[in-house]
């Protein structure tokens, strides 16, 4: 069996096309994903709020002679002008720098600002609302309804929170100016008041930080796993004694049908598994998918997926009514189609896959590519491995079904002509 296993491995590796589909093609696709999806997560992490400000962007840098120490000490300053000036400076600060919280557009009037906000709704650069300082007060108008207890949209919530804080700080300073100006000399008070506004923090409700691009890598792993079925297909085609002179000759030996099938299964499973592990490593190293402490369970999923793929190849090889030459093409077509339901081919298919998952979960349950994809997803984002084990279990049940179907088909063929 040892020699048979060794030569089965060697032979399958050298069959033209098999490793191209099983290993090279997924690696090429993975490389394309690295190039195409690299900016996806960066974009997803941006939390910049588009805001329309009523006023002149030059106001922040305007002459501040009216705010002289002398005028301040004499209490002879224009409070409205000071408020306008302070608000403009505040807004300007929020819109500066690489990590600016606000992306600001200016409007000449509240009406124009409202028009700009309305026009932006539904576009990629939707405004969260508009703000202006008038009559000594900050006015905040949100694009969409948001209440203090319920934030329907993130951006309007951020805008509202920032403006609320400004109003509170402004009221505090005004109060101090009137009642205890000396308190303004307290550096700790000033420091806390002037602390940068952290309107957003990075938090995750899942086990790992979600990355939009990783779903594509998981889908790729699903597709690659089932391209591994080519190995099972080629391996089992060559031991069906009625398929070729070579297969007939192999069946004449003393190894026995069962052992020959076992050797073929082990060899094709090992190669499919190794191909998948290489892709997994590539995705981790080059694609930046950090499985971290989940790497062990990922390897188990690869084992289950490659076994299921090998079984699928075996089942396909056992169908005598389909010409052997056509089976490779049929398999590739099936895998590519199944990958649509894993969302492999871009955002539209990802949306389609999500819609199918919600409306017809049974379609996911019978799709091995989706099962592999979801197993990796569950590993990364669920608190326990129960869901991942469930997907791996479904893959193993599928493998068993494929093997039973293969055995029944081969037995019928044996009685017919073998």
């Amino acid at each position, binding site marked *: 069996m040892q*020699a048979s296993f060794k*030569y089965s491995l060697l032979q399958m590796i*050298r069959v033209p096309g098999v490793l191209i589909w099983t290993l090279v093609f997924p690696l090429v696709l993975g490389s394309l994903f690295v190039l195409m999806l690299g900016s996806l997560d960066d974009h997803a992490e941006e939390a910049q709020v588009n805001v329309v400000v009523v006023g002149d962007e030059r106001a922040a840098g305007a002459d501040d002679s009216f705010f002289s120490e002398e005028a301040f000490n004499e209490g002879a300053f224009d409070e409205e002008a000071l408020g306008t000036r302070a608000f403009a400076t505040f807004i300007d600060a929020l819109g500066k720098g690489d990590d600016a919280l606000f992306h600001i557009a200016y409007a000449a009037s509240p009406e124009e600002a409202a028009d700009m906000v309305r026009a932006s709704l539904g576009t990629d650069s939707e405004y969260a609302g508009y703000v202006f300082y008038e009559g000594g007060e900050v006015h905040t108008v949100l694009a969409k309804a948001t209440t203090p207890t319920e934030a329907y949209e993130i951006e309007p919530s951020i805008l509202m929170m920032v403006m609320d804080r400004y109003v509170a700080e402004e009221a505090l300073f005004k109060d101090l100016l009137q009642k205890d100006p000396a308190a303004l000399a307290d550096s700790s008070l000033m420091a806390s008041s002037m602390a940068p506004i952290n309107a957003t923090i990075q938090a995750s409700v899942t086990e790992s930080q979600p990355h939009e691009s990783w779903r594509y890598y998981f889908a790729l792993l699903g597709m690659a796993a089932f391209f591994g079925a080519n190995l099972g297909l080629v391996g089992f085609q060559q031991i069906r004694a009625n398929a070729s002179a070579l297969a*007939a000759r192999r069946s004449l030996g003393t190894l026995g049908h069962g052992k020959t099938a076992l050797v073929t299964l082990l060899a094709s499973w090992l190669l499919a598994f190794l191909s998948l592990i290489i892709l997994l490593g590539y995705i981790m190293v080059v694609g930046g998918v950090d499985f971290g402490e989940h790497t062990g369970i990922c390897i188990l999923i690869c084992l289950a997926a490659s076994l299921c793929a090998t079984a699928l190849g075996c089942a396909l090889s056992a169908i005598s009514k389909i010409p052997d030459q056509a089976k490779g093409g049929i398999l590739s077509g099936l895998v590519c189609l199944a990958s649509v339901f894993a969302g492999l081919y871009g955002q539209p298919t990802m949306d389609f896959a999500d819609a199918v998952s919600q409306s017809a979960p049974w379609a996911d349950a019978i799709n091995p590519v989706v099962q592999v994809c979801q197993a990796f997803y569950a590993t990364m984002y669920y608190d326990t491995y129960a869901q991942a084990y469930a997907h791996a279990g479904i893959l193993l049940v599928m493998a068993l079904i494929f093997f039973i179907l293969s055995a029944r088909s081969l037995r019928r063929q*044996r*009685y017919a002509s073998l």
Partner: protein
Amino acid sequence: MDTVVSVQDLVKRYGSTVALDHFNLEIGKGEVFGLLGPNGSGKTTAINCILQLLTYDKGEISLFGRPMTQVSYDLKARIGVVPQNVAVFEELNVQQNIDYFCSLYVRDAAKRKRLVQEAIAFVGLEDHVRMRPKKLSGGLLRRLNIACGIAHKPELIFLDEPTVAVDPQSRAAILDGIEQMNAAGSTIVYTSHYMEEVEEICTRIMIMDKGHTLAIGTNEELKALVAAGEKIVIEAHVSEAALIRLRALPHALRVEYGNGRLEVVCENAEHNVADVLDTLAQARIKPGRIWAEPPTLNDVFLEITGRELRD
């Protein structure tokens, strides 16, 4: 003589077609047994049934005195098969192919290594061990096909048309090899369409057609079964009148003339050459070169199986 192959009353049907019709066969130890028949006569079906590659509808098959089944691995270990079509791995080189097929019978790696080297030497592929099959010529490929079948030194070897599409040198080497294997104790079952090969190496021959045995015996016994005796060939200018007299000779079966060459096929009789020469002398025809050819196995085969074309 010990019986190595015994087939009793074997029936194999493909739907309504009867491929083997109560077929019987006995082959003794040490024989080189030739199995002859036109295309579709049932030769390969018979061999495949014996090897348990095909199920059959009726009959009993025994090898080495024991019933042969799909799981008779101890019997299979004593059998070598060289199929009609070259059946080797395109992806493995010569040595790896022989080692693989040998490993189906021999577990011991050290023993297998020795057997593989012997098989390579036996078929003369020492200079090609690292080559893959697609790089080999037709003759070398056939020799590899043989090596894969005999490396484990089987006691019973089935060779199904092993010399198809090989040059005369390779054919001679293959036939020499078969004789060597037989001399070393192997029983050979040989099928071929090359009658002269069968005539040369087989100790006993069976002619079969339509799933039946038509004739069985040694080369001489088969030739004695048919009416055709020697073929007399004469170079001469023969008139139409002389041809009529020749065809009227009591033992003449067939008389043909063309391009100054006269051929007279006669029944087995004592004075055939003299009778023909007397007839030519009476017609005042001077013969040039004269020779007589004894009947060949091909003549026997055609007489037994007929001259009509087969599919």
